[in-house]
């Protein structure tokens, strides 16, 4: 993996894109995104009664002349968007070739680059690793820091995904766009999504699964050991078992997608190794995750 994680070609693809959340969020600093808060942008919002101290520049003189009643025009404010990049670094992400984590890092960098270019505040965070919330990354110039953070990220976590999402929610992080890049290998992952959404986040789950999960090449009599806990399952890997597994996976993914949609978020399933340009074209642009 190069120092900047993404290739020049991929940077060109991402150039000019902006994250396109469904909700609007209150920002901390002035930015490029309209919020519900009244501000000083050029986007007209509403009229209200004039009160003392109001800036006379916003008084609508025409209305005063016609109605002899002072009203002022209010405008929407433009603030930054908090983009939480939540990268699953649990042990299950170390499967696949390349590993799911490596691929998740590239996606995180892609999302982060788009956000930074859009003037958003990017908060990278690894799921599965206990860490204090860091400061926001802002502006294109911060991308190398984001890239360095991803390259130093190792799969070490053993916590369940839902617990980690719950823990993140409890940190009181500023509501914003929570881009969760994970394999979602947790039966309780839907509850994690629900909790995050309950804290005001718009949860966008990018589920990355490798060939090992989508088309497991197993045969014979096996004892499957869960890499993240002590769980073990004895199976005879025959066509019946493999078909049952495929059904379970499909149901699990469908339940996660349903929960995301229900909570106003988004969900997509990306197979590890899918070229970034195809992800941008077939998912992000097509489903409205980003706008040009």
């Amino acid at each position, binding site marked *: 993996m190069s120092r900047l994680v993404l290739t020049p070609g991929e940077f060109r693809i991402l150039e000019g894109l902006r994250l396109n959340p469904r909700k609007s969020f209150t920002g901390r600093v002035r930015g490029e995104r309209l919020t519900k808060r009244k501000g000083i942008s050029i986007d007209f919002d509403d009229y209200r009664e004039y009160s003392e101290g109001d800036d006379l520049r916003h008084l609508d003189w025409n209305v005063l002349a016609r109605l002899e009643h002072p009203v002022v025009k209010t405008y929407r404010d433009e603030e930054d968007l908090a983009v939480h990049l939540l990268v699953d670094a649990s042990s299950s992400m170390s499967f696949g070739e390349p590993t799911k984590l490596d691929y998740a890092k590239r996606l995180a960098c892609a999302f982060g680059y788009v956000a930074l270019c859009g003037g958003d505040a990017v908060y990278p965070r690894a799921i599965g690793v206990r860490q204090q919330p860091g400061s926001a990354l802002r502006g294109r110039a911060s991308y190398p820091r984001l890239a360095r953070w991803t390259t130093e990220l190792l799969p070490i976590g053993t916590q369940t995904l839902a617990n980690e999402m719950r823990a993140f929610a409890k940190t009181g992080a500023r509501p914003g766009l929570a881009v969760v890049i994970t394999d979602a290998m947790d039966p309780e992952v839907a509850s994690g999504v629900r909790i995050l959404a309950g804290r005001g986040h718009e949860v966008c789950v990018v589920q990355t699964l490798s060939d090992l999960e989508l088309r497991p090449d197993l045969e014979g*009599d096996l004892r*499957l*050991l*869960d*890499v*993240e806990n002590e769980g*073990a399952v004895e199976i*005879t890997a025959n*066509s019946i*078992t493999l078909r049952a597994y495929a059904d379970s996976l499909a149901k699990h993914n469908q339940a996660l997608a349903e929960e995301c949609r229900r909570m106003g978020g988004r969900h997509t399933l990306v197979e590890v190794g899918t070229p970034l340009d195809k992800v941008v074209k077939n998912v992000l642009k097509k489903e409205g995750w980003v706008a040009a």
Partner: protein
Amino acid sequence: MNLQSAAALLWLLPLGGIIIALYLLRMRRKDVHVPATFLWPERTDEVRANALFQKLRFSWLLVLQLLALTLFVFALARPQTLQKGLAGTTTVVVLDASASMGATDVKPTRFDEAVKIVEGMVASANPGDQIMLIEAGPFPRVVFPLSADPAAQKRALQSVRRADAPSDIEEALRLATARVGKIAGAKIVLLSDGVFEEVENFSAGQASLVYNRIGQGRNNVAIEALGSTAGPEGRIVYCGVKNHALDEQKVDVTVYADGKVVNSETATIGSNKTWGQTFPAPPGVKVVEARIEVDDILDADDYAVAVVDPGSSLRVLLVTPGDIFLERALALDPRVTLDKAPKVPEGEQAGTAGPGTYDIVVFAGVKESPVKARGILTLGMAGPSSNVTTSGRSNSFTFLRAEEHDIMRGVDLRNVYMENVEKVAPKAAGRVVAEGQSGPLIVVSETDKRQVYVGFSPLDSDFPLTVGFPIFVANALDFLAGSTVSDSFAILAGQQFQLPAKTDEKATLKRPDKSSVEIEPLQGRYIVRGVDQVGTYSLSAGDRTVTVYANMRDDKESSVNAQEFVSIKKKEFKAVSDLRRYADFWKPLALLALIVLAIEWWMYARRS
């Protein structure tokens, strides 16, 4: 059902125990790390075991394996059932290929039914069962030798062919005995309708004979006679038809002369009675045909042909105390109608009243005497009417040379051993065509009669064992018959004959079924075989074409009455309807076991 090796069933206990013990073994599974286990169903189908021990659980694989084992062990016990097919482990089948086997009382014919039985025997033979097939036609032949190769036997079976002629069952049975007569328990199965002459000279040895009768009807009407004779007012054609059926039959009889109808009438013929009719032949007619229309079971004898042309037939009288070689050599000529007598009948002697019956008289081992016939062949004993005078005998005779003469074409006497040769001198008309150190050996003459004299009897030499002997006899007949050789003959189907070959080119024999076969000339003669079906054949060589009419005229064969008993060397053999024996039943069991194993494999593959 019998069990030949019932003790083999005891294998069921230890082998079944082993299979069950294998199912008591516990599975040791391979550990595999996965990202998550919650998606995997807890599903185990234990098809392999490698550790001790667990409680026996129900498994379809176990059931199928025990079932397959039971079938295999049962097959090992060699169950036997009474089965149709072969009569034993070593079997020689003698297949009657005679004319009567063409009867259609068994559809399509008795012969086809017999072939079907042989096919069944080959198909039902167990591995190691040896079968031999002999086709008992006019000249018996081995269709396939004693072997256990069903594929080759089936192929060879395609070549069997029935002849419209009597079969030589005796020779065929002797051929069978020669092969299996010393094998105890061997069976000779005679597939026949029993319509053949009593077998006199046969012994089955240690083998046993089984007669399997084919056919049951006898409803047949046959043309028994068709010919012509010179009468005071020209030629007379006679035709005889015999009803072999048990009931009276109405028969439409039509006679043709050179293809034109000359007589047609409906005859009512009683059971076992013969109807006959004579009528004048049109002047100059050469070929007379007769055809009967009747609902009977044998077609071959419903048509007959007679060649009226005098050059087409030679009536030959063989005067001899017995000479089988000469008899056979004479019979090879299609023109010859041969009679045999120990001495010249009175009516044939020269000086008696009336014309002679015979064209040629052959003296062999009998002193030549004056006869009315226009041709005389004398072998070894000259008489006063011979073309030589005798002066004693020589015991050591060496052949010296032969002259260019038609009678010596294709004949080589250089290596022939001969003794008791007459010392002779030719008379005035006599011409020596072969001579040895003691004088003339073969003398010919052409006066009012044609004569050929040979200085030794065939039985006093090894001449009959050489290729040249039948050729010499044929040449002699050609010489003695003169120039009246016709281009059409009527023979009996199945008869072998020979004709002179003027060049070295091959002759082509065209059969009634439009097939043809090429015949190489041998020592100046075409030896023609395979005229075994009734009908018209043509033999073409160079610019000459000879038409040969094959007839089936045999009272025994036409009777077609399938016999309940056959008499072989004065012993009666009762017919059996089908052949049965106790035979191994392991094949279906083994097949069933394989099917069970295949299902077991499929289940195993599906589960693993």
